[in-house]
């Protein structure tokens, strides 16, 4: 069979979002790949240069739409670094609850999209059913289903609503034994194991050099995690450890990446439960929105020459914001906002991982890296 280029075009069930993967195919085997991104490039960095610091949070919610909270928090930490603001303890705990719930919702969205990639449609509906539970909790915090605009520079917009802790504990308990349902559907089905094990090898050292971090890296048997390497928030007070998967000799494959994310959901659930128990001032007390317990006074102008940068553990890897202060309005608007998207760097690496495998493995490998195109194209 002559080699031919197939373009898995912008609209394609395999791409979770809009991008094109040009694949050179010899029969059923992939010989060469070339990703083509930029189909939903909205120039968020350019728009942020003419927005105030609070207005930018809404744009950061819409970067990676599957995990809106993690991205708006990543931006807010960088903004607090720029404006030098001390965040009260209780606000940090509330932020941790919001971020970890969002991480579970993001992994559920990934697991739901990974099922149909390999051919099982009922997983998508099950995972979205559980994701609705998480979105209900986040809706109580942020007010809307997907984009919450929840953190503020110096704290959070609102305190936990009444009865939130009790509802959260109930839903997380139900969720923890729902995970066994997914594991039964995935781990005990030989078809899934045969389709995902030994497919898409990636060695940890090579991944770090290629800029791949997060669950994809931890699938290779290394426990590197921004939350403990460059600590932020209150992760040091809680008892947790990033899950690590014992990969195969040739490196992490799709099965390991699936295992790591399922474990990570359990770790995030336990983190939320611990945070609700250890919340200073108790999880059931309620403070008014502007209360100093949850929102510190913060300056709104950043003088010329000041900069703020922060690394953050997003559900897909290491996300980062770099903000140079001193824009228009005497510093009310940033001069330059630069966004590091983990998937913008992982997708080309994942495309290289596919070489040598079958056409049917392309969605399995690409899906296991959990691409989210909103953050990739910014």
């Amino acid at each position: 069979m002559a080699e031919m280029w197939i373009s898995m075009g912008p609209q394609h069930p395999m791409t979770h979002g809009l991008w094109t993967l040009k694949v050179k195919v010899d029969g059923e085997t992939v010989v060469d790949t070339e990703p083509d991104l930029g189909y939903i490039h909205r120039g968020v960095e350019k728009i942020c240069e003419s927005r105030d610091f609070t207005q930018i949070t809404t744009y950061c919610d819409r970067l990676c739409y599957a995990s809106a909270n993690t991205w708006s928090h990543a931006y807010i930490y960088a903004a607090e670094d720029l404006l030098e603001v001390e965040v009260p303890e209780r606000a940090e705990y509330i932020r941790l609850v919001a971020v970890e719930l969002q991480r579970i919702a993001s992994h559920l969205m990934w697991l739901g999209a990974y099922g149909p990639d390999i051919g099982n449609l009922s997983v998508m509906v099950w995972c979205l059913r559980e994701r609705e539970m998480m979105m209900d909790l986040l809706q109580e915090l942020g007010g809307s289903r997907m984009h919450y605009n929840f953190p503020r520079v110096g704290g959070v917009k609102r305190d936990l609503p009444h009865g939130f802790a009790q509802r959260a504990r109930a839903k997380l308990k139900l969720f923890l034994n729902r995970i066994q349902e997914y594991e039964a559907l995935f781990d005990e089905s030989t078809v899934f194991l045969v389709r995902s094990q030994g497919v898409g090898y990636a060695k940890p050292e090579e991944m770090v050099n290629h800029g791949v971090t997060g669950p994809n890296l931890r699938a290779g048997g290394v426990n590197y995690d921004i939350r403990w390497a460059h600590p932020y928030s209150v992760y040091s007070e809680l008892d947790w450890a990033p899950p690590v998967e014992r990969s195969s000799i040739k490196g992490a494959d799709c099965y390991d990446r699936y295992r790591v994310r399922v474990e990570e959901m359990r770790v995030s659930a336990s983190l939320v439960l611990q945070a609700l128990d250890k919340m200073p001032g108790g999880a059931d007390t309620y403070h008014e929105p502007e209360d100093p317990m949850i929102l510190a006074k913060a300056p709104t102008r950043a003088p010329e020459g000041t900069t703020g940068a922060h690394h953050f553990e997003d559900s897909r890897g290491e996300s980062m914001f770099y903000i140079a202060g001193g824009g228009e309005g005497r510093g009310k608007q940033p001069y330059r906002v630069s966004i590091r998207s983990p998937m913008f760097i992982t997708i080309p690496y994942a495309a290289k991982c596919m070489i040598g495998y079958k056409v049917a493995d392309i969605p399995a490998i690409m899906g296991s890296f959990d691409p989210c195109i909103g953050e990739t194209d910014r």
Partner: protein
Amino acid sequence: MGNTVSPDSQKSAAQAVADAASAIEGVEAEVVERSSGTNPRNVVVVSASPESWRFLAENLYSEHAVDHCSMVTGIHWPDAEAERRWEVVYHLLRTGVRDPPIENGLVRPMMANPTKLRGASVPIELEIHVHIPDTTTPSVDSVQDIWVGADWNEKETWDLVGIDFDGHQGMRRVLQPHETPQGFHPLQKQHHLRYHGFEEMYDDAQGFMRKPADVGKIK
């Protein structure tokens, strides 16, 4: 190992790298302590001249095991003084990630204990500013072959900000449409957002005018 890297071990490691880096001519490095909420963070802030940047990068990669290039940012300072018109900011990380050892056919995962990390294995954070004097074609040496992670970030920086990277293979537009006219780099300060004193769509090959009014269109 539920807790995190101790700040003082990170500070001493950062100080070691800062001293080694400022030993190179054309490079000044110092450790800045930034507190993000509850945890103090020690960042090695380095400002390097364009000529010394490539040597500094190789030195960091080989001697100090800085194995991860987090981000490359290009900034355009049109009204700064002459030799600081363009700036490229590199964010590098030392992650200390090794391939896990293989014992009797099984991989033993490397579970680093954050509290016991000392010296060269403590993860540190670097922020390197490279200022480029005023030219119409700003360019810096590419580090594509040292950290492959920087490859697509360099492509994006050229695409959006217009700073070129010498020695970069396969430089092309990644985010903007392929038929964007040459020399159009939107993040440069002379371009403004629409409705901020700029009415029509940018000069684009596809000729998209503003949205036609809904006159006479039955919905």
